[in-house]
């Protein structure tokens, strides 16, 4: 079980970094912006939450496949790599992060941001000193939800990254393989690990929500 655990930690770690880096600015933009671009961006970011995982997997295969403009621009191969699995995990985790953070950013009194401006704060300082600290619980809850969802990602990951031991075989995929091979002990230990992590995430989330009230 150690190998898939390490793969899962790497995949979720990479995905969490991407979710934070993409999710915070997108949520902030969606919390403040009105207009067509915001609506399109919202649709693109949130749609993986509603799509069947295999349909998402198909889209990711097209986007990450050889010859796609994205891969040529990045200059790295993503299909059947750890990074590819992280892309799939990011796609499913990002919507939860964006929804939770957007609500938190929208809940910050804009007059507090105005006060900071009159006190000499640049837009960046307004964000760092006022907006982010006041929205921190919602952002943290979003990261946690995103991480939980990214950990459990199965269908799209299998399609774009396969099940390569030590590279793309994450805990949920290793569980599926163990059941297929009739390896009950491995299956049970993975089930216990994932259930434990889910319960811990849920308890932590409840703490964030209590703090918000």
């Amino acid at each position, binding site marked *: 079980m150690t190998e898939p655990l390490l793969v899962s930690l790497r995949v979720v770690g990479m995905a969490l970094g991407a979710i934070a880096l993409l999710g915070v600015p997108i949520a902030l933009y969606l919390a403040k912006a009105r207009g067509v671009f915001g609506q399109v961006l919202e649709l693109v970011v949130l749609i993986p939450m509603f799509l069947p995982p295999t349909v998402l997997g198909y889209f990711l295969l097209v986007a990450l496949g050889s010859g796609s403009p994205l891969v040529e621009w990045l200059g790295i191969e993503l299909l059947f790599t750890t990074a590819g699995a992280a892309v799939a995990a990011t796609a499913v985790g990002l919507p939860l992060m964006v929804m939770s953070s957007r609500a938190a950013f929208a809940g910050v*009194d804009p*007059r507090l941001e105005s006060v900071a*401006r*009159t*006190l*000499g*704060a*640049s837009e960046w*300082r307004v964000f760092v000193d006022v907006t982010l*600290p006041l929205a921190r619980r919602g952002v943290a809850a979003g990261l946690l939800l995103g991480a939980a969802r990214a950990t459990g990602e199965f269908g799209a990951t299998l399609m774009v990254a396969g099940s390569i031991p030590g590279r793309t075989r994450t805990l949920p995929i290793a569980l599926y393989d163990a059941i297929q091979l009739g390896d009950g002990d491995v299956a049970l230990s993975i089930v216990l690990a994932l259930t434990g992590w889910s319960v811990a995430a849920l308890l932590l989330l409840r703490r964030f929500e209590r703090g918000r009230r």
Partner: protein
Amino acid sequence: MLEVEIRKPLDHFDLDVRFEMKSELAVIFGRSGAGKTQTLECIAGLSRPVEGLIRLGRRVLYRGEPEKRSIDMPSRLRKVGYVFQDGLLFPHMTLRQNVLYPLMRCGRAHDGEARAEALLRDLGIGHLADYMPGRVSGGQRRRAAIARALAGEPELLLMDEPFVHLDRVVKARLMAEVERIPNERGTPVLLVTHDLSVLTRLAARIIVLEQGQVVQAGPRDAVLGAPAGAQVARLFGDAFSYEGPV
């Protein structure tokens, strides 16, 4: 000296405000929804007029003319302090951190602690420096908000209804503090209110606003002594109007 001449369409009327003030305590007086707060926001750079001029001393804060490139200085560079209606302290910072905030932003963290301390003491809340805003009273929060606005050494202090929802004693004490600001610190104060007692107690200059227009402006005694018409007199209440045959 502050020179304001701004135009801005609002929902129900057009804001078309023109007035001047010296280094004194001036009061914009008018009913709720007359455009008072909008005027303050334009001066602070939180809202943008469509055209006009806002000049503070020699600095042009805003200049907008049709078909010309406008000047619109960002809020953070205007040196205009703003005290919002309910104080509006940063709820995640202590009173001391709130007052330190503008000093950190203008790179004066080195002597900031002492200055913040002095301001809090001066406003009678030195003993509450390490309290969070949620743990102190409404009057104390407003004192801290005034200390915070003054910490950045603004060239003009704007105050939006700073005495609403305060009991009589707290309000009288806070009014005395505000009255001291132009005289002792040399910072002009432009205050918005619809409260006649604030007007009669504090104003050196009165600007009466109705439906986005300045209907009368001038030194306190001149305005209160000779309201420009029945409409303004009625705004000042019964003591200033007398009905009879003409």
